[in-house]
């Protein structure tokens, strides 16, 4: 197995190569506005570091969010296109699961990332590998009211200390964690997600209210 994993659902452009046992190479850059430019060069760099070629890859793993849409789509369309061109399976993993797996916590906790518009994407975990329910998007105060007292990780928690006192890293997801998680789940026969985006919000488009006259009334 040679598993190429990447995620663009947080400000990080993160790529890792995993052989089913361990991470062979990884790259993480943080630049919320340049996912489109940085992802493929990072893939190329990670493969080169591991002495592998893209044609050697047997599985693709992509973070399906939730995350800001424009960056999120870069990862998803790249995974879909690579998967189609290489003829290898493309798996999805919830981005928050990747952060949870790297949290270093063992009791119940919360992962929150920045959803912009004063909201966070979040999910509650029993332990680093067990999510309770589906990810959601809410205002930090609403989340705090529901998870009061639980430790919190992720940039969304760090951004709102009043709602998440004592929040800690990791801020963003790492593809190494995502790859290890996916490799373990594949080995254990646990199904992964389809590589489809978790937007969690509808496009905010308003149906025009009506005609506004140009003549003075």
């Amino acid at each position, binding site marked *: 197995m040679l598993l190429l994993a990447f995620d663009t659902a947080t400000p990080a452009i993160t790529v890792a190569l995993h052989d089913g046992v361990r991470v062979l190479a990884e790259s993480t850059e943080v630049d919320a506005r340049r996912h489109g*430019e940085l992802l493929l060069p990072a893939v190329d760099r990670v493969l080169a570091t591991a002495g592998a070629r893209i044609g050697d890859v047997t599985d693709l793993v992509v973070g399906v969010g939730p995350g800001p849409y424009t960056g999120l789509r870069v990862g998803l369309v790249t995974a*879909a296109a690579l998967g189609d061109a290489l003829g290898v399976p493309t798996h999805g993993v919830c981005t928050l699961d990747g952060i949870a797996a790297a949290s270093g916590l063992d009791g119940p906790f919360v992962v929150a990332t920045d959803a912009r518009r004063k909201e966070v994407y979040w999910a509650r975990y029993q332990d680093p590998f067990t999510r309770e329910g589906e990810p959601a998007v809410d205002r930090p105060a609403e989340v705090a009211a529901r998870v009061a007292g639980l430790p919190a990780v992720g940039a969304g928690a760090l951004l709102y200390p009043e709602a998440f006192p004592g929040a800690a890293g990791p801020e963003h997801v790492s593809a190494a964690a995502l790859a290890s998680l996916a490799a373990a789940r594949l080995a254990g026969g646990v199904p992964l997600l389809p590589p489809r985006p978790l937007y969690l919000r509808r496009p905010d488009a308003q149906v*025009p209210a009506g005609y506004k006259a140009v003549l003075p009334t």
Partner: protein
Amino acid sequence: MTSEPLVLGIETSCDETGVGIVRGHTLLADAVASSVDEHARFGGVVPEVASRAHLEAMVPTIQRALEQAGVKASDLDGIAVTSGPGLAGALLVGVAAAKAYAYALGKPLYGVNHLASHICVDQLEHGALPEPTMALLVSGGHSSLLLAPDITSDVRPLGATIDDAAGEAFDKVARLLGLGFPGGPAIDRHAREGDPTAIGFPRGLTGPRDPVYDFSFSGLKTAVARWVEARKRAGEPVPVADVSASFQEAVVDVLTRKAVRACRDNGVDHLMIGGGVAANSRLRALAEERCAAAGIVLRVPRPKLCTDNGAMVAALGAEMVARNRAPSALDLSADSSLPVTEISVPGPGPGTGLGRAHGLSQGPENSHDRQVGGGHRHGPGHDHVHEVSGENLYS
């Protein structure tokens, strides 16, 4: 080159996910998935709706194009993609997909200009473009007069709209008349039953001191709105057919008049018309008539090649390969306001591309300037895609 280049082109600058495959000047496949129906109730293209649809449609549309063309991805000589101008988030989906295919297949990648592609598509219809080519590009996002001595390296903007694009005016007037979105086909249909001389709507920027090759359609749109409102307030019925015909006549009169003038002034004996508005039947007829009178050969591709599609991108990509132009690098970005003078976005590596003669040489050190939404400056005569906004006539 022993055989003509086989190139796949990807276009996602607005609401059409287009994938075309050409061999030289021969069209092999033209697959388009459109999200236009999803935008209709909003009265215009909603960027986020378009971007989501591109992601869904991208790989299936590529697969459909390869199937239509009967070629294998491994046979391709290159992959071309619209890198701008257009809606930033929409462009990014196509650019990321193109990079992934090019990387996985080991093929050269060509990030190309949407407007130059609209011109180059005519090679699939009428063979090699004359050099120079005079082009009138009219769509929902653009209205430009362009002189192209070399479609892969030298496109010169003569004029462009200073406010609304022609297609945008069609959409807004159609909305005013209750004809739905997109407005172009609806106005065209109603205009056939109407009198184009019924109402004398203004011809924008045609005064003696106005810019010779620029366009303006915002004032026309407002004039139509005022006329229609006055009618309604007087309690009289609105003659939809006559308004449609008279409005359409005002648009195509100015477009064709300025295009013919541009040909004459520059000693060019043919005119290419492209973009979605080139599908308008009255524009085609009046252009035919005026070009014939002026001794100008008119080249207008079939309507399906005038609207946004991947074949046009493939056509320009094939020309890039044939002329040995420099391919793009893996850090190619989407540029929502790519100037028309930047026909392609060559990478920093070794290459013979003449496109670099335009000062495009671009290394990693200045790649920050090229990010989506980045603020690099464009000269005059460059028009941006107009996203749906509530600022003008509607709110």
